[in-house]
């Protein structure tokens, strides 16, 4: 082997090493804190001590599940997450369908408008929604937050649905119509089933987004309706204990379950991958 080729190989090997080190560091940085929280949630000490815990117990889980405030928050969070996800997905796929399939005046502006919740800071959005809801008389905290979360999730559901709809040839709709189906029947029997992975993945995004939403919700909660993240946040400021770690444990468990279910239903690679549906060929 010549000197030159030896040097080329060494540079290659060095590049590979740097790449893998970076990847390993990133994973460690993402995963370690989560693992630490999980371990700390089983802390057996009565006080907030250093990591690792010297003894283990389920006391913080007991305090989480025993707390009326947290349990009410958890229930609200679940209801809000599901309801806002349904709304965001339904509106998202219809909007995406219009944006992908049709040309109409002002299309670019409409698209930009749908994406605007990504840019407007949550605090501003929350406050303006509070004013708006009061003006039109929506006083129920639950509905306020459901619509707010749907609004915030909309850019994600539209984007994901757009990607998946763009891969479905419009000739399939035309074929269905030439076989006697109306445009609506073609949408529900052909387009929607083919976009199901995209719809599901936009649902996962919306759900995840709603579960930990704080910025907007904090303006909209009332005395009777609070969400789990907000309950945890306000509690943490009053008396810091590891109940928040136990809540994290519960949420992590939920997310893992969600991932497993999605994987079983459509395959995780399709949902995360963005290619998103079985191609015709």
């Amino acid at each position, binding site marked *: 082997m010549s000197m030159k080729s030896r040097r080329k190989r060494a540079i290659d090997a060095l590049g590979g090493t740097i790449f893998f080190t970076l990847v390993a560091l990133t994973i460690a940085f993402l995963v370690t804190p989560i693992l630490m929280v999980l371990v700390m949630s089983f802390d057996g000490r009565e006080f907030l001590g250093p990591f690792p815990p010297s003894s283990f117990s389920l006391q913080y889980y007991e305090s989480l599940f025993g707390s009326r405030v947290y349990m009410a928050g958890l229930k609200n969070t679940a209801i809000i997450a599901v309801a806002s996800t349904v709304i965001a997905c339904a509106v998202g796929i219809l909007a995406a369908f219009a944006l992908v399939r049709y040309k109409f005046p002002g299309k670019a502006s409409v698209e930009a408008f749908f994406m605007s919740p990504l840019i407007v800071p949550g605090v501003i959005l929350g406050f303006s929604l509070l004013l708006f809801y009061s003006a039109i008389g929506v006083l129920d905290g639950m509905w306020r937050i459901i619509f707010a979360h749907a609004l915030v999730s909309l850019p994600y559901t539209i984007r994901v649905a757009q990607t998946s709809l763009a891969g479905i040839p419009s000739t399939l709709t035309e074929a*269905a119509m030439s076989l006697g189906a*109306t445009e609506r029947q073609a949408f529900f029997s052909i387009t929607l089933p083919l976009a199901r992975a995209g719809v599901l993945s936009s649902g996962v995004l919306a759900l995840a987004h709603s579960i930990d939403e704080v910025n907007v919700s904090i303006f909209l909660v009332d005395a009777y309706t609070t969400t789990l993240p907000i309950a945890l946040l306000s509690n943490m400021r009053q008396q810091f204990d590891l109940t928040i770690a136990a809540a994290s444990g519960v949420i992590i468990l939920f997310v893992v379950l969600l991932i497993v279910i999605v994987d079983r239903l459509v395959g995780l690679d399709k949902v995360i991958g963005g290619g998103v549906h*079985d191609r*015709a060929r």
Partner: protein
Amino acid sequence: MQDKFRSIELRGVTKRFGNFVAVNDVSFSVERGEIVSLLGPSGCGKTTTLRMIAGFEHPEVGSIAIAGQEAVGLRPYERNVGLVFQHFALFPHMTVADNIAYGMKHRDVPKEERPARMREILELVKLSGLENRRPSQLSGGQQQRVALARALVTKPSIVLLDEPLSALDAKLRQALQVELRSILKRVECSTIIVTHDQEEAMSLSDRLLVMNAGRIEQEGTPAEIYSRPQTRFVADFIGQSNWFSGQLKEQAGSNQWLYGARGLSNIVVEAADGRPSEKARLGIRPEHLRISDHFPSGSAQGEPAANAFSGTVTNVAFLGPDIEYSIEVDDGVQLLAIEKNDNRGLKAVGNPVRLSFEASDVIILPE
């Protein structure tokens, strides 16, 4: 029994996209059970015509009657038109049987009639046994037959095929051409085929409509169009020709004219309605040029025979069944001649040859 009406009639159909006239005053009709091809280059308006018949585009002017009923303004699902897409557009999430049943369901075929029709159509397109496959598990030829079955099973008044064989490879195309025609003839379904492939059009159809720049240039049987093209465009689009620019000089018999052009002498052609001194183009199909090695001894000196040139072979392309010769005739003009491969060897480049043709085998077009 089939329905009483099985035809379509377009009258003065025009369609614009902005300033571009895609289809310009097109009129034609298709008789019951007839297979007609709309043939033309891309952008000639043939696909727009097809989409107007299917109901995806709407003409500004003109009428489209399907089975005797005016269809302009009807939605695609309100007209009984079958459609086979270029890339088949099979529903990928459905089995073969579900694909075929889709139209029966939406066109309200009675439930008890569906299984029999399904069996019949699967047998017709030779797909029995594959009804539970997904389209992705089928070969290109099988997918095409599913698309055809799906379009035919609802017994449409007319079926439209968009470039039906272009998505398949060459070998398969040949086999399917024959099969496709026999299937369409057996169900006696009126058919319009849209294609840019002259071979596909000629082998599949009873009648051709050659389109160019939004208009129908000529219509007729494949043989009529090939041997008697009425415009330069048609003559060039369908087959090849060697062209000369010149004029009909004087009448030399009934329908026979002396033709003069640069580098040509002693040429007699048949022209039905010529006028003396009329400028005219002369076209000769390559396969109508006969190639022989030598001049007949008698005419080597003195008067050369009528309708003959001498030349030199400049290129030989061996195509298997045919041999294609490029031949430079005396004046530097290059001609193309095609000879059947009779296994008697090729003429070599540089060989002197004699070319001749019959007066009746020419295309004469007004300049």
